[in-house]
């Protein structure tokens, strides 16, 4: 395999565009880990709410959605996340303009896509409530089962 690999930031600086695979689950169900392809353009102006920002956190590159634009940066959250992040303007290096989901090519200006985004944002609070409640229920059920299994083992 070729060895002279450049970072995403370097590619964006040189060509103004980065095309690559998605990694992680934070943008599910829109982008699936290592299946889909993203097209990110270098940031040339301030992002708008609902844009998907590519930003740097240490050595990590993160692709999450802008919820709010502040004076110094953005409030950002992954579509599949349940917490907000405060990201300074200078950490944002690009914006998602297109993506391939399975074999389908979507533009971030497509009506269908924008409809999906608005729906995803709109139902965030109810989704958060159900997901977090479900997680608590699962954890609550798992604990006594673990205790019983441990107690059973000791008995034997």
């Amino acid at each position, binding site marked *: *395999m*070729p060895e002279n*690999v*450049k970072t995403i930031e370097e590619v964006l600086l040189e060509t103004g*565009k980065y*095309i*690559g*695979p998605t*990694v992680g689950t934070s943008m599910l169900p829109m982008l699936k880990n*290592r*299946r889909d*392809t993203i*097209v990110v353009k270098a940031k040339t102006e301030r992002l708008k709410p609902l844009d998907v920002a590519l930003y740097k956190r240490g050595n990590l590159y993160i692709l999450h959605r802008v919820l709010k634009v502040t004076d110094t940066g953005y409030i950002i959250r992954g579509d599949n996340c349940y917490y907000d992040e405060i990201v300074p303007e200078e950490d944002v290096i690009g914006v998602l303009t*297109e993506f*391939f989901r399975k074999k389908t*090519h979507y533009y971030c200006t497509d009506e269908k896509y924008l409809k999906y985004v608005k729906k995803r944002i709109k139902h965030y609070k109810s989704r958060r409530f159900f997901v977090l409640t479900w997680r608590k229920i699962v954890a609550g059920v798992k604990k006594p089962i673990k205790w019983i299994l441990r107690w059973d083992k000791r008995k034997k």
Partner: protein
Amino acid sequence: MKIKSGFVLRVVGGENVVVPVGEMSKTFHGMINLNETGAFLWRFFSEEHTVEEAIDALCSEYEADREQVEADVNRFVDVLTRNGFCE
């Protein structure tokens, strides 16, 4: 000859770009830009074919000089092989 699985050819703004998917994206961190002929050959070698078959296919597709096509295909195959893209 056949190109390894784990790559997809995407057309973005008229450009042909090959990017890794699945397990391949853990080890290959990059993208490959191809011209029109390169994209044709990439698609052709996505299934098992010989270099001779690729030359014939390219000649019939582009009606180009056979000697030139032979040289181009051999160079393309050489780059693929040297960089470990072939099975």
